[in-house]
């Protein structure tokens, strides 16, 4: 199903060409974010991604968070404990 959603995401991302993708954690957002990022590298679209990590994550990131941390434009966390380990992240109360 991941493969299927990946293919579907290519279709959606290229058709919609979102300026902004907001996502908050479940693994389902990984294909979309990766494709939006890929399109930007290829110069085919200009989408930005803001990822909000789960409020339950205090000391370490979720798997999705870890995967997407390098490629998103804004990475939002809710606990200051994460800022040291992930300096690119931003705290929102």
């Amino acid at each position: 199903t991941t493969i299927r959603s990946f293919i579907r995401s290519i279709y959606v991302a290229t058709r919609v060409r979102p300026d902004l993708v907001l996502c908050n954690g479940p693994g389902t957002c990984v294909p979309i974010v990766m494709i939006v990022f890929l399109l930007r590298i290829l110069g085919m679209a200009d989408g930005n991604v803001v990822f909000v990590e789960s409020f339950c994550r205090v000391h370490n990131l979720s798997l999705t968070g870890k995967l997407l941390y390098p490629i998103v434009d804004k990475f939002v966390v809710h606990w200051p404990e994460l800022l040291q380990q992930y300096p690119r992240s931003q705290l929102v109360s």
Partner: protein
Amino acid sequence: MLSLSSSKRGHHGGGRSIFVTVGTTKFDSLISTVSSSQFLSQISKPECGAYVCIAVQYGRGAVTPFVSDNTSTSGVEQISDDQQHDSSDDNARLVEGVSCSSYRFKPTLRQDMEAADLIISHAGAGSIMEGLELCCAANGGRIKGGDATASGDVSQKRRKKLVVVTNAALMNAHQSELADALEARGHLFVVNDPSELLKEETLRQIEKFDQIPFEGGDGGADFAALVDNHFGFEP
């Protein structure tokens, strides 16, 4: 039928009440513990809070509180769609001098949580957040993001508290991560096993616990500003 929300403080002569919630989950060891005679006789003691009323929301559990033949040998009950909304599950009784009632689910637990002096919750993020919001309102804290309104009666020395019980049987290590982080900041009291609640020492500690209101977020204003800022929009 007795239920917490219909019994105002005056109804029990100013008596205090406990509300136990497991949300949509199943937490049989907690439910067995809080419905046991041992627990009920402890909580009615003055040094443990002098509670006179307890309501238990037991979700998908196999254990039904406050019934005399409480066996789970028949295995897990099938939860049909009807039962999901069956709030007439109230089986109210008087046990060890404490008014006890229970139900599986209600459309919203807010009223019961508002009426209680002590909320004992599983460590689910949603239940924790709702509990914190209501405690903050009741204890006179400022709510920035939530929609609870502060009650006027903050002169009461006995404040509203939240106890969170983590479930070791679940593999969710990050459940206790949230509870522990909030406890470290003084916003709630963590119990790591339901059996701890049977100990008088634990109950005394809870009674003495001076909870710091969790003033929550700002309803998203910070986040909105962050996104706007990223695109170069001025606030």
